């Protein structure tokens, strides 16, 4: 039983650690990518992977109690609002006419 709990703690640490790395990668991507549209995708790495792993790690670390429930609530909320605000940014940019950067191979534009 004790070993099992220790193992759970180790899993929690790994989750938190990799979640932190994902958040950094998301931020790095939003700094490195060449144009607005690709930066949107980098931000969604933070929004999905980073949030899931960090909250999961904290939830496992705290055991099962009211704290876990609050973490779950934060997670559900970020899951609903994160994509919605990304979509809102993308939609506003699209309406205002910011087009994706031209690639070497393909022309940007709508494709059926």
């Amino acid at each position, binding site marked *: 039983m004790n070993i099992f709990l220790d193992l759970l703690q180790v899993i929690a640490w790994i989750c938190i650690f990799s979640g932190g790395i*994902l958040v950094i*990668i*998301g931020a*790095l*991507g939003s700094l*490195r*990518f*060449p144009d607005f*549209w*690709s930066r*949107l*995708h*980098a931000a*969604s*790495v933070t*929004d*999905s*992977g980073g949030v*899931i792993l960090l909250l999961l790690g904290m939830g496992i670390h705290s055991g099962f109690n*009211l704290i876990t*429930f*609050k973490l779950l*609530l934060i997670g559900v909320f970020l*899951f*609903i609002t*994160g*994509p*919605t605000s*990304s*979509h809102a940014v*993308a*939609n506003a940019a*699209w309406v205002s006419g910011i087009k*994706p*950067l031209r*690639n070497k*191979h*393909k022309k*940007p*534009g*709508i*494709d*059926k």
Partner: protein
Amino acid sequence: MLRSIFTAIFLFALWYLMSGIDKTLTLVLGAGSSVFAVWIVRRMDEASNFKCLSVHLRPIEFGKYIFWVLAEIAKSNWTVIKIVLSPNMDIKQKMYEVPFTQKSDLGQAVFANTITLTPGTITVEVEADHFLVHGLSYSFDDHAALAEMDRRVSKTEGIVDL
């Protein structure tokens, strides 16, 4: 009516789990406020055609769907991470149309949000029968993957009474 009672109980459970206080006065106040909130929403529902209190989702199917989505998120995260960390950043951006088959607004919202939540694809615009999706590293397989996601979201939808 049953739905309203369920909503009130759900709200009260949420309230209790957030506060964690079990004194009589606080509990009564919490129960009163959740009933009051449900009453207001019912009145608003009567005033407009849009029904806020009805959620047409099948719980078990939706639970399965969430696990499937988590796996998808892991996969697509990996793709985007590789692109971010690779020195020359192999980006193939493309806008393409994705048809959807959901009937209710909620189903469409779930599908669009899932597309946005998985890194690498973002819903840009909602049209009458399709979404406009922007992909970071476009390949022809993306259409099949998104069609699969569409099918799974449609399965979670319950009976829609429009």
